[in-house]
């Protein structure tokens, strides 16, 4: 009898309602909600209660500059990443599958290589006495080393390189779903390649660009290692400033406030991404 009952029950029952989601919710509460609330509390209680930490962050020229730097770097990196990633993704999309999987493998492999190693490699390449400057000087193209590191150029190069896979992957997905015949049709109707790109390929790939772009933008906002190593002190980004406040200055109130602002901005952008990409998906964009 009891054996029968057991047999009638499906082996994997989809948990339903709040009860089923309880383990997951508990984890989120423990590892996300509790620390975030603690962060928020610290930012309004240290060293004395009040909103002074936020007032300092928004009122002091130095901090507003850091906010500006953060958004500037994220914007520049996102824009350059899209421009560089698009042709690569398009090639991947139309490549024969066998070759495509090899190229794909290389991209994924670079993603799995230690971040610090890759950043240090860029330092070796970009510095004044580095490979790039040496080569350019040897062949007589420049007489003085180009300032490629400790500035926005260095940060952009290093970060674009690291962000590329995150842009290429969603883009390939979108591009593969586009019927190549639409482009041929455009050509038959007399469209130049540029015209076909502008009026057909670009609009159809927008969901992928939006998904990848927002992901890159959000990740860039909180980036730490690469901007710290390849940037100068005048390009300091929010994450580096938070680290400085927590580790060196022991000003945890101000650090928490800055971290909380970063979190809120990131969550807002994430929500935007869900809406944008979700909406497109519903209309059959992907």
């Amino acid at each position, binding site marked *: 009898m009891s054996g029968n009952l057991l047999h009638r029950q499906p082996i994997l029952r989809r948990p339903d309602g709040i009860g089923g989601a309880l383990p997951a919710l508990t984890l989120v509460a423990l590892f996300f909600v509790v620390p975030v609330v603690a962060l928020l509390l610290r930012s309004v209680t240290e060293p004395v209660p009040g909103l002074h930490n936020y007032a300092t962050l928004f009122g*002091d*020229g*130095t901090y507003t*500059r*850091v906010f500006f730097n953060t958004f500037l770097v994220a914007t520049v990196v996102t824009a350059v990443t899209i421009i560089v990633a698009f042709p690569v993704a398009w090639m991947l999309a139309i490549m024969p599958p066998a070759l495509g999987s090899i190229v794909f493998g290389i991209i994924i492999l670079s993603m799995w290589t230690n971040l610090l190693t890759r950043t240090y490699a860029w330092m070796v390449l970009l*510095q*004044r*006495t580095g490979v790039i400057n040496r080569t350019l000087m040897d062949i007589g193209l420049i007489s003085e080393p180009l300032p490629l590191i*400790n500035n926005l150029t260095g940060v952009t190069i290093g970060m674009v390189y690291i962000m590329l896979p995150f842009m290429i992957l969603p883009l390939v997905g979108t591009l593969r779903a586009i019927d190549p015949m639409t482009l041929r049709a455009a050509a038959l109707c007399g469209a130049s390649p540029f015209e076909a790109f502008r009026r057909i390929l670009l609009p159809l790939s927008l969901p992928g660009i939006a998904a990848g772009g927002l992901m890159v933008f959000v990740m860039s906002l909180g980036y730490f290692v690469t901007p710290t190593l390849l940037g*100068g*002190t*005048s390009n*300091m980004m929010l994450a580096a400033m938070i680290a*400085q406040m*927590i*580790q*060196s*200055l*022991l*000003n*945890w109130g101000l650090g928490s406030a800055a971290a909380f602002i970063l979190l809120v901005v990131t969550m807002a952008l994430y929500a935007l991404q869900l809406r944008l990409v979700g909406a497109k998906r519903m209309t059959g964009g992907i």
Partner: protein
Amino acid sequence: MKLILTGILAGLLAATAARADEMVFTSWGGTTQEAQTKSWAAPFEASSGIKVLQDGPTDYGKLKAMVEGGSVAWDVVDVEMDFAIKAAKDGLLEPIDFNVVPKADLDPRFTTDHAVGSFYYSFVLAWNKGAVSGEPAGWADMFDLAKFPGKRTFYKWSAPGVIEIALLADGVPADNLYPLDLDRAFKKLDTIKSEIVWWDSGAQSQQLIASGEAAFGQLWNGRVFALEQEGADVGASWNQNLTAADVLVIPKGSKNKVSAMKFLAAATSPKSQAMFAEASGYAPINTAAKAEMPADVVKSLPDAYVDGQINLDMNYWAENRDKIAERWYAWQAK
């Protein structure tokens, strides 16, 4: 299955039992911590039977978090002296038990109620001989872009050193440095700001000078010592070398306080201090250590360059660190 569980349990028990004879030493990593492990921890382990686990790098935020959170994983930590003075005031450190740690021969400049010296170093002016024509004589030359063109590298963090160097270069007499004239220092720094490359770790300072990426730099003397040992073509000026110390502290609530005190006694003993100095090029803080060292090692230590040596004022920095740091980072970000 039961057998495996029993095995794991037994293993865990053994691990916790072993912990009684263990302690954790935390320092900055790299060649310095290697020398500390070899010169202090290894002989201490042999004589006391207490195992010294290494951790690092030192992180003041983490130290504070451990003490405030009541779960202190570090027993002895190598920190900068001005931090130690401030941290003692903030209640983050255990007082040193000088019944266990003999105090008589310890350099009083680097000993407080809550800290004993670890080693002391000098900031010296180092340069890449291939990238600099001529010999810079002192800090003033580092600010002379006409006479000595090229990039110069300074310590990135707000800490005793750079401000003093700027003031000395601007002609402030050494005995008149404190209280620091910040306006004057930053004005002087402005004149070379575009040529400054910052280093944030000792290894990076070595790399910048050795590669010629920066022609000159303010370096820890031990890092120059290491470069010379590796055969790099570097010069160094000890003129107005600036001394400061690292100190060893025990975070409040350390679980192995007794072992930690014994470790401090061993680490600051003449023998261990001499061994460390020989390995690192940093000076011992035990005045009896010199007798234990070969003469040519003594010659290369900051101890041998006391003429014109300037002691950075750690009490002043402990008092004003936050205020200076705020201005320092704002100026850097500009």
